[in-house]
């Protein structure tokens, strides 16, 4: 089906925007913030040029952006937006409301470190605080995956067994601004794949009035939250079906965990998003030197693919978890999930926690190699270790 596709050089942000153009959603409400700004700017251009007949709401803050999205979604529209860093933090109050309303919003989250200090570069400190907001979180490695994930996210969010909003995350600048070849489906193929939204209980059905956002005390609150959990529990099953369907057209299928030479590996690095590319290269080099290294890239952080992880991780000689955000005073988010999942294994697998790349600090092949070598030397610490800190005498980083 080659005539169904086109391949061009583009960036993660522009790939996201192109998917939006093809989806032609009902409403986009967004507010500019680096590095996600290009997404609404590009979309506003599509609206101005008549390439979509969506409505773009140029709101006065991120808080109003997500609120307008909730309103438009509950009204019955297909709704998309994008943001980063402090913009995401300003929206925080509304995220659990969106998910409790079962509003299937698709959100381009371009990861950037949270201030202070102010920094525009990538880490995951903006999206990780939202892991308990009841949203699906998908983390992408490259622009192609961003494009494919937007299409998948629309179907996933709107599926009647899921009805949960989705963050499609990509690394700020690294993925959002770097150009690479991306293959796009034809407009027709995208429209056939995403179809039309069939809203459940839309607010605009004035003949069947419903109330959203009611005052709900101890008698019912818990049940409503339990119901949301059930929607989240259905995500991986539904995702499996949808991703197979898209793969027929694209030839690309993404698992909840991207497993790279991991099945027969002795040592694993578990990581997320763009930095996995570096680890995969190092895995290849180490394999050439006879070391059975592997990489797991966690693509779905919510819901966390616990069973898949345990299956692959069982029997490994060592695992290093590399977090691109910290939970100051506690275990970093990814390490926390991994350790929790591995607790049920009968045979203990040692796990070393690392924090890397905060505020866009570079992550080099030598760093990944050192992580593997440290595991090979059975050198584990119960303390977190740091990769790439300027202070080489940092005791915590070295012990």
């Amino acid at each position: 089906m080659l005539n169904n596709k086109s391949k061009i050089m583009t960036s993660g942000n522009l790939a996201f925007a192109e998917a939006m153009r093809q989806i032609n959603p009902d409403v986009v409400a967004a507010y500019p913030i680096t590095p996600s700004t290009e997404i609404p700017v590009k979309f506003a251009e599509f609206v101005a040029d008549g390439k979509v007949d969506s409505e773009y709401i140029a709101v006065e803050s991120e808080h109003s952006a997500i609120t307008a999205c909730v309103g438009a979604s509950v009204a019955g529209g297909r709704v998309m937006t994008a943001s980063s860093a402090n913009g995401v933090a300003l929206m925080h109050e509304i995220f659990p409301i969106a998910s409790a309303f079962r509003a299937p919003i698709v959100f381009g989250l371009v990861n950037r470190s949270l201030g202070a200090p102010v920094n525009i570069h990538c880490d995951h400190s903006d999206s990780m605080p939202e892991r308990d907001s009841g949203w699906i979180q998908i983390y992408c490695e490259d622009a192609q995956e961003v494009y494919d994930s937007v299409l998948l996210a629309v179907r996933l969010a709107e599926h009647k067994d899921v009805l949960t909003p989705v963050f499609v995350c990509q690394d700020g600048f690294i993925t959002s601004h770097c150009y690479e070849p991306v293959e796009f489906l034809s407009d027709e193929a995208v429209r056939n794949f995403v179809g039309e939204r069939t809203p459940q209980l839309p607010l605009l059905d004035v003949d069947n009035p419903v109330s959203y956002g009611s005052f709900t005390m101890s008698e019912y609150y818990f049940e409503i939250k339990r119901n949301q959990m059930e929607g989240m529990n259905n995500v991986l099953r539904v995702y499996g079906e949808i991703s197979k369907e898209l793969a027929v057209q694209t030839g690309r299928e993404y698992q909840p965990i991207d497993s790279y030479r991991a099945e027969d590996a002795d040592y694993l690095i578990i990581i997320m998003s763009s930095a996995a590319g570096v680890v995969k290269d190092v895995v290849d080099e180490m394999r050439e030197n006879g070391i059975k290294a592997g990489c797991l890239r966690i693509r779905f952080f919510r819901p966390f693919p616990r069973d898949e992880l345990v299956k692959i991780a069982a029997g490994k000689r060592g695992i290093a978890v590399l977090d691109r955000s910290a939970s100051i005073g506690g275990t970093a988010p990814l390490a926390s999930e991994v350790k929790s999942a591995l607790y049920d294994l009968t045979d203990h697998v040692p796990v070393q926690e690392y924090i890397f790349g905060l505020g866009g600090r570079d992550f080099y092949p030598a760093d990944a190699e050192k992580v593997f070598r440290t595991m090979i030397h059975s050198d584990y610490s119960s303390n977190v270790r740091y990769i790439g800190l300027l202070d080489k005498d940092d005791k915590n980083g070295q012990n």
Partner: protein
Amino acid sequence: MGKINLKELTKKQNPMTEGHRMCPGCGAPTAVRQALMAIDDPVVVVGATGCLEVSTTVYPYSAWRVPFMHVAFENAGAGISGIETAYRVLKKRGKTEKNIKFIAFGGDGGTYDIGLQSLSGALERGHDFTYICYNNQGYMNTGAQRSSATPINANATTSPAGAYMSGKLQRAKNLTEIVAAHNIPYVAQTTLHDPVDLISKVKRAVETPGPAFVNVLVPCPLFWKIKPCDQVKVCKLAADTRFWPVYEVIEGKYVLSYKPLKNLPIEDFLSVQGRYSHLFRKGSERMDLIAQAQADIDTEWRKLLQKTENYTC
């Protein structure tokens, strides 16, 4: 605009059911009922967090016979923007044929204070909706705290009248004028002194394309410390003392909707409310503060008259 027939209107089903949990004598449900009476098309309502929202949506019940959404405290303007925009797109795309009107209700906390930015954004963007502020001059849902709508000298729980301070020290913000400065097509200020006034203002607001704003002064018997049966009486005093001028700004043109026959002194409005009782305590009367309040009212009234006269002379 068609003539308002009150007798006919009373036959209309109230979009808010009986059995809601608002207090006896609260002005908010009166304002909601009168406002929604004015509209013949189907409506979708957004409520900011506040007494009205919590008291009408106690799950698994809802007092709303019309679609209703509450998101949070500070964002009724943004919420209604999203719904109204989705409606326009769905209509354009042939997915709905109805003519729906969009109304947002917010208290003064959700409108003057925490929701001001969201409201301002929605007004500036020109969505076709009507925002109705039910203004009881403070945070009643949390127990009578002061807001920027609370008048000077009022005894509120975060501006208490004590031995040293005599209630709120600052004047209230003039939100109606701030909204008018957005140059939207319709702005109005009224109270519950006369149902025809509120109904006709909301009717005009809803029939005007683009954003419209109505600021309705409504008593809270608990905060104002008045008898529930005195709701209309106190609202009439607010209008007759010119404490709360009743007027409209139609396409920038100021129109006085109600001119008191005789200007009653501000004492008449203050002395019937317990929230000002510290001003009238025997032996420590604060006639100086009452005189200042009167002077403020006279100044504001003159300013308003100048604006209306500029258009009428």
